[in-house]
């Protein structure tokens, strides 16, 4: 596989994640979309790392850091979801319109 094919795959995955994040009603599904997008970015890093970087440690470090950040993000996101569910008994993205106030 060439670099361009990997990049194309990554673009497809990213758009899928974007679609999920924008269209899903369940907040957990929105989170899943975000995860997909992050993985698309990881894939991009790894592809460039393979094909056009002299020191291959660089891209791998980036991907590891992305994984770490994703873990932090998931922890916060899930705790927010749990709290939301406890308070309002729903995690439907459309019923959460607090920003309006």
């Amino acid at each position: 596989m060439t670099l361009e094919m990997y990049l194309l795959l990554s673009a497809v995955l990213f758009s899928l994640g974007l679609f999920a994040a924008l269209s899903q009603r369940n907040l957990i599904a929105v989170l899943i979309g975000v995860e997909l997008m992050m993985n698309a970015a990881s894939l991009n890093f790894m592809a460039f790392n393979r094909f056009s970087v002299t020191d291959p440690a660089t891209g791998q470090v980036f991907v590891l850091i992305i994984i770490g950040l994703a873990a932090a993000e998931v922890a916060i996101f899930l705790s927010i979801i749990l709290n939301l569910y406890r308070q309002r008994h729903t995690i439907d993205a459309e019923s959460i319109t607090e920003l309006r106030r």
Partner: protein
Amino acid sequence: MTVELIVVSLFVVLAVAGGVMAARSRQILYNIIGLGISLFGIAGLFLQLGSPFVAAMQLLIYIGGIVVAIVFAMMLSMPMAIDPPARSLPKTIFAAIGSGLFLAGLVGLLNNTTFETRPTAGDEAWAVSRIGNALLEHYNLVFEALSVVLLLAIIGAILIARRDRTPA
């Protein structure tokens, strides 16, 4: 058709199919399974791209940790018996237009760009110890910042999810 090509194609198919499943299904359980499949495919591609270590980390942390955490959140938050509400059509169309535009833009960019490729570095440059050295030397500041972020995330998660002891 070499075996390698078949394996890679399999991974690509897994990644995309999983992604579609994660993005399209209304059932949260299928979303999660789709994410897991997609992540597995991507981990395979990492392996193909020469980094067994990162692939292993992807499997361990992402699938072993993050996906499992999401499963827990699902079990804690959503009554499984309830049929998920339908998505409104305009919203789905809007999201499709947005992400479709984005995809088209990315593909166009890919089309118009020529990427400079270099020969792949030797096996020794791909050693895991090189990653460790890079993390603790050149990327030390990033590493430290990430550790702080993780700590804050832990504290924040505890604070947010903690049950309020005083009656509201």
